[in-house]
Each structure stands twice: as C-alpha cells, then as structure tokens.
C-alpha cells in the first residue's frame, strides 16, 4: 500500500499540472462552441435582454446570409472575451473601458451607434427625497446623506461605471453599510432593490421590461444629461485570428451604424416606449 503522504503529494502535483494546462489553454475556451462562418457577438446585457438584438440580428442575417450567436455579459466581460479572441464583435456601453481597450491597441474599429439612458429608481416612499433633486448628483447626495439603502451593480458593467462616475462628483463621500455592492446583473439587482426597498441605477430597457414585476419601485429621476450613455460597436484586432470572422464583423458594424440599423433601433419599443436612440453618421 502506498504511504498516505506520497498519495497526497501525487494528487497535488497532478492537480497543479491540470490547473496549469487549463490556465495556459485560456480560461475562455469555455465559451467556445462555434460553427465556422457564423458571427459571434459579445454584448452588454441590456441590448440582448431588452430584445433589441432579436430585431437587429435577424434583419442582418436575412440581408447578408450570416448566422449570428450572442454572448450576453457585462461590458467589461465582453471586452475581455474580445481580448482573448473569442468573439468577432463587441457591443458595449462603458466608454472608459472601451477607451482603455482601444488605447491598448486591442481594437481596430470603435464606432458609437446609439444612445440610451439610465434611471434612478427607488422605493415609492422615497425616504431620501431623491425625487426632489434637480440633477442625479444631487439625488445621489441626498441618498448618501440619509443613508438610505442603495444597491450597486458592483460588476464593472456599463451601468456600474456610470454609477461610479456620478458618485465621483460627491466630495467627502463615505460609503457605509447603506451602500451594498451586489456583483450581479441588472435584473437581479432590480429584484434585490424591490425586495429590500432600496435605491438603484438602472438602464431604461431593463426597467421597462421588468417594471410590472417591481411594484415597490418607481422612477425618481431621469433626463439628466449625465444619465445618458453611448453604445458602441467595436471590432477587436483578434477578429483577424483564424477561426474568427473579421469580414462578417465589418458587415455587421456597418449595418448597425447605417441607415437600416438606425431605423430599426428608432422603431424598437418596449411597452410602447423607445429606449434606444440611433446616432446619425
């Protein structure tokens, strides 16, 4: 019989070998299940979950005969997937992260193609009086001052980036237990805000799609220029790697930024309300 300590050692060594192999082969290989010729898009969740891509992509496929598949993740993760050469095109709404991505020389095309906006949501009784604020910075200040519960996405998504940008305008901000970092997607955070009676920042599309299930929440502030967000299409340099589809990505990028894409985006409504606005090129 093998002595215990030697078995243990053997086990450890084999584990390290396995772990090292996985690491070097790239963690993101878990995302791979592609059929060649199709186009893989890594996108921020709001664009996919709102149903916008279900309008845009079939129209694109009909015109160019190219199949598409979508990985819906936060903007940060979408860019990370692109960096690893696991997608052909990115739709993102985190300008700072996108700028970093381009500055590192990882992207070959970056075109803003539509805008959307964020809403400050909160409990109906509005304990912080955020609805009386004129700007989102004032509203956030009121929430911090009253120490009312605020739930942050905390997941490096475009929405999280925007929220941090607003907080950065408040001098001497102290984040106490009232500030909760959820580290989850928009739908989960909205459910959490509903359950806990908390404030949160949401994109309009997800709110419109979910609001019938969120009876305790209401829109407290909207329309502030700072709450605007820009969605961009990015083609990573890695789209030229073998097995990727840079040609298809270029076609989709020009479709999204062109007139046909623009009219589809403008005509897209959730419960009768528009939530994305095309940028004219």
């Amino acid at each position: 019989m093998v002595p215990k300590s030697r078995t243990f050692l053997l086990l450890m060594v084999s584990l390290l070998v396995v772990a090292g192999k996985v690491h070097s082969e790239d963690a993101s290989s878990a995302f791979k299940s592609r059929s060649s010729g199709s186009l893989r898009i890594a996108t921020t969740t709001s664009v996919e979950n709102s149903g916008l891509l279900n309008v845009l992509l079939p129209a694109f496929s009909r015109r160019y005969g190219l199949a598409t598949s979508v990985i819906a993740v936060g903007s940060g993760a979408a860019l990370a997937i692109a960096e690893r050469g696991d997608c052909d095109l990115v739709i993102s709404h985190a300008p700072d992260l996108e700028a970093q991505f381009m500055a590192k020389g990882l992207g070959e095309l970056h075109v803003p193609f539509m805008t959307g906006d964020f809403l400050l949501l909160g409990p109906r009784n509005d304990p912080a009086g955020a609805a009386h604020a004129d700007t989102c910075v004032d509203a956030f200040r009121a929430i911090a001052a009253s120490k009312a519960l605020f739930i942050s996405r905390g997941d490096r998504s475009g929405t999280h980036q925007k929220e941090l940008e607003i907080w950065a305008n408040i001098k001497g901000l102290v984040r106490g237990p009232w500030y909760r970092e959820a580290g989850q997607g928009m739908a989960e955070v909205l459910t959490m805000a509903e359950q806990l009676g908390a404030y949160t920042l949401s994109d309009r599309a997800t709110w419109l799609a979910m609001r019938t299930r969120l009876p305790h929440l209401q829109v407290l502030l909207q329309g502030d220029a700072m709450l605007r967000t820009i969605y961009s299409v990015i083609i990573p340099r890695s789209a030229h790697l073998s097995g990727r589809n840079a040609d298809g990505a270029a076609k989709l990028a020009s479709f999204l930024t062109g007139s046909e894409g623009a009219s589809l985006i403008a005509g897209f409504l959730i419960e009768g309300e528009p939530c994305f606005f095309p940028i004219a090129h």
Partner: protein
Amino acid sequence: MLFPDRALMKTMAVSTEILTILGRSLLFAFLSVGFSSLAGIPLGMWIGWGESRARRIAYTLFQSLAALPTVVVGLVLYAFLSRSGPLGPMGLLYTPAGVVIGQYFLALPILVSFIAAGFRTVDRRFMETLETFGCGLPLKFVLALREGKTIIAAGVAMAFSRVIGEVGVAMMLGGNLRNSTRTMTTAIALDTSRGEFEQAMILGLILLFVALAVHWLINSRNSRGTLA
C-alpha cells in the same frame, strides 16, 4: 520601508478580502452542514437500519432530492423568504442566515442518502445483538454512531463538498453582497462575469485546496473503521 508601497497595500487589501470571503464560505458550510447533521444523521441511520415501506420511500425520496439543482432549491426558498412570501417579515433574504438556511436544505438530502446507504451495508448481526441485549433507543443510537462513524464521516464530507462548491443558493438567497454574503463561489461567478478569468481561476484553486485540506482532516481523523 519608510513609506508603505501603495501597490503592495492594494494587493494586501485584496488578499485580506479574499481571506474574509474564504472564512465566510467555510463558516456558512460548517453551520449548514452542522445543523443538517443534527437531523440528517439520525434520519439516515433510521432509513438504513432495516427494511420497511416507509424507509424505502424515504430513501428514494432523499436520493432524488439530492439531484435538485441548487438554483431550484434557491428559488423555492426565495418564494418563502421574499417580502411577499410567508416568511418575508423575518427579513432573512440577502442575509448570511438566508444562505445558511438554503445550504441546510442542500446538505440534508446528500447526508441522509449517504448515511442510509452506508447503514444498509452494516452487518445484520450487529443490530440483532443490540436487540438481544435489550438496549434502549438512546444506547442503541450511541453504539450505532460509534459503529458507523466512517459512514457518517463520509456523508458529512460529501455534504460539505456540495455546500462549499454551490453557487445557486448563495447567489439567490445571499445576493453576492460584498462584505456580507459574498462567498468563494459567488465571487468566482462575479469575476467571471467581469472578465477577470485569472482571478476567478485563482479563487477556484484556493477553494479546491481548502476543500482538500478539510477532507484530509476528516479522513485522517477517521481512518478505516470496523465497517464499510
């Protein structure tokens, strides 16, 4: 060093947070497995003790319950703990207690079916001897505990593995709240969604090594007994 290195400080802050999260994961697992052992060990022993229709039904039921996805267990409990649910006023949703309750229900079926399966293999003569001596229930229970400690340790170990590695309940009932309910598994899910694949992988390896250590401890304290 005269001035603390900022990068170093940052790295240390990060690793302190990881250690805290690891400690929290272990605490949740120990509590939930501990509580479910109180009910699960006697129940598993009873099911494995003899043959009867009730035992067969219970055995099949618990084995099947062990197959439930963690998210489904999370979903069912969510319905109870949510503000519109019957237990809503207790305010357990998105708290550490909520996670422990969820993990209790994950651990229980594993524990029960494992222990029941083990006790089914115990030599009949052992039970018959206990009957002949006319032992009372408490004494029978204690003697059986001693006799089946290897089986019980294996059941507890499997329940621990199920709980320490699950994401569904921790995410749904805990909410992955930083400094409150974030566990190793929800932190891994978060890092993955952020595109921090290396960090996620490191956390996964840490979890694996800690699990190895815990199981090693259980097994070394429980070297091959008289049974199994």
